[in-house]
């Protein structure tokens, strides 16, 4: 049997699953930030016409999936499975979305690392011949996350500058074993996106206990995954046009750069973080964006479109997660961090 793994933690996809469509739907605040031109839908009202925030999040996720299907030129009957997750207890947003769509469903929890977790597993299913078309998606909502992990919305409290703002948004990608029919973008043939490698991260816990220090808690896991990926593939950071982490925010981004530099890996020219990109400084999001929807909406919006146009050729996408629970932090446990990397190339 052929082993599709190189090094210690990296998968190689010999059949190169294609990303044939993607869509990102975000809330009002995200739609006022610097990334606004890349999102497919920007909500005028974060409730999206629903009575509860959980239902709003579910609807946002469903919208992102339906738009991605449309973008890929597929119908939902052609899809073999949805891989999706969010931050809410028992994956309420994803499960209720899947209840509506009636497509086989695998719910995933990887905290904010869910987008690359779903991408990796989707690529594995296609590469192994278990599926032809897969939806990989993730979502988060400021109001559902606040009420689950923090304070009621109307409570008048102050956040420290290292705190992050949960992104209201969802991203969805359609993975397929077939290449998408040729399309033209601005007079040029659009590039075909393929998933070539994936590195599954292990949990790294640096001992941070402060829930307002998520970036610092996840940074060591991100560094571990990046280094493992480079080691397994024998690549230099300069191989990629972009190395993008999920939601480390301003604080975490600086730590990753510094930690890598200590290991003599210079990523300063190619590295950025979705959380740090999401908001303007004036938007009062402190250290930046967080949540599954942060990396999901930027990968599915910004990165997908830039890669289709050929402006980015090779990208290493790393969603980062803090695997804490409300109980674990009350019991004084430190925050376990995780990061999964996916290498995508435009061909």
């Amino acid at each position, binding site marked *: 049997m052929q082993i599709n793994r190189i090094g210690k933690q990296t998968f190689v996809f010999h059949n190169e699953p294609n990303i044939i469509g993607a869509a990102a739907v975000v809330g009002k605040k995200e739609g006022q930030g610097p990334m606004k031109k890349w999102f497919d839908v920007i909500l005028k009202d974060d409730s999206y016409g629903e009575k509860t925030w959980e239902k709003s999040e579910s609807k946002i996720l469903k919208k992102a999936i339906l738009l991605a299907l449309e973008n890929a030129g597929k119908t939902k009957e052609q899809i073999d499975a949805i891989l999706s997750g969010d931050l809410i207890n028992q994956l309420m947003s994803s499960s209720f979305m899947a209840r509506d769509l009636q497509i086989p469903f695998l719910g995933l929890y990887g905290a904010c690392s869910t987008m690359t977790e779903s991408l990796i597993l989707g690529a594995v299913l296609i590469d192994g011949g278990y599926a032809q078309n897969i939806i990989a998606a993730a979502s988060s909502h400021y109001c559902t996350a606040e009420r689950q992990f923090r304070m*009621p*919305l*109307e*409570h*008048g409290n*102050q956040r420290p*500058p290292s705190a992050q703002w949960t992104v209201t948004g969802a991203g969805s990608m359609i993975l397929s074993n077939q290449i998408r029919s040729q399309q033209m973008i601005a007079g040029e043939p659009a590039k075909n996106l393929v998933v070539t490698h994936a590195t599954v991260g292990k949990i790294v816990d*640096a*001992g941070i206990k402060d829930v307002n220090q998520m970036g*610092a808690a996840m940074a060591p896991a991100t560094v571990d995954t990046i280094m493992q990926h480079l080691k397994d593939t024998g690549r230099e950071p300069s191989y990629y046009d972009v190395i993008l982490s999920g939601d480390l925010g301003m604080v975490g981004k600086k730590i990753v750069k510094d930690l890598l530099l200590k290991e003599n890996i210079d990523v300063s020219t190619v590295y950025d973080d979705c959380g740090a990109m999401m908001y303007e400084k004036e938007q009062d999001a402190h250290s930046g964006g967080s949540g599954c929807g942060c990396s999901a909406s930027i990968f599915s919006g910004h990165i997908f479109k830039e890669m289709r146009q050929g402006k980015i050729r090779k990208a290493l996408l790393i969603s980062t997660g803090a695997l804490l629970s409300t109980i674990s932090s009350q019991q004084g446990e430190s925050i376990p961090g995780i990061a999964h990397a996916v290498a995508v190339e435009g061909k």
Partner: protein
Amino acid sequence: MENKKEKQKKEIKKRQAKEYENYVKQFTPKPKYFMNSLKAFFVGGLICIIAFYVQTLLMNRGYSEKDSGTFVIVFLVCSAQLLTGLGVYDTIGKFAGAGSIVPITGFANSMVAPAIEYKKEGIVLGVGAKLFSLAGPVLVCGISASVVIGFIYYMMNL
């Protein structure tokens, strides 16, 4: 033997966590303590001035000090409830910090905020169960502390 090794491992982990925490500090922006204290002082002071103004107004109209004091509390609580309902109090809180948490208005806010938040889960299991989710711990600890201090005070005066 086994236990000793385990203990040593834990110690090393603890030390590493502490080192990382210190290392991270250089990348973490500090809260602006001075400005925050100043804002808290002025907003908290403003709330007290308003309360005092209302009380004086009532006392000038012939109400007793105790009655007007009670009325002031009701007035502050109701105003904070209204402002929370209108979605203004969290903005004030973000600006003022402790200045709007410490006065009784903060207490009102900490009860109305969960009431609004959990309305969708029903009157009994939503609002009823969560109404004291923020104020409850404060009440329990506050009352317990006052009982202990009261007891010590009583013993001292024996």
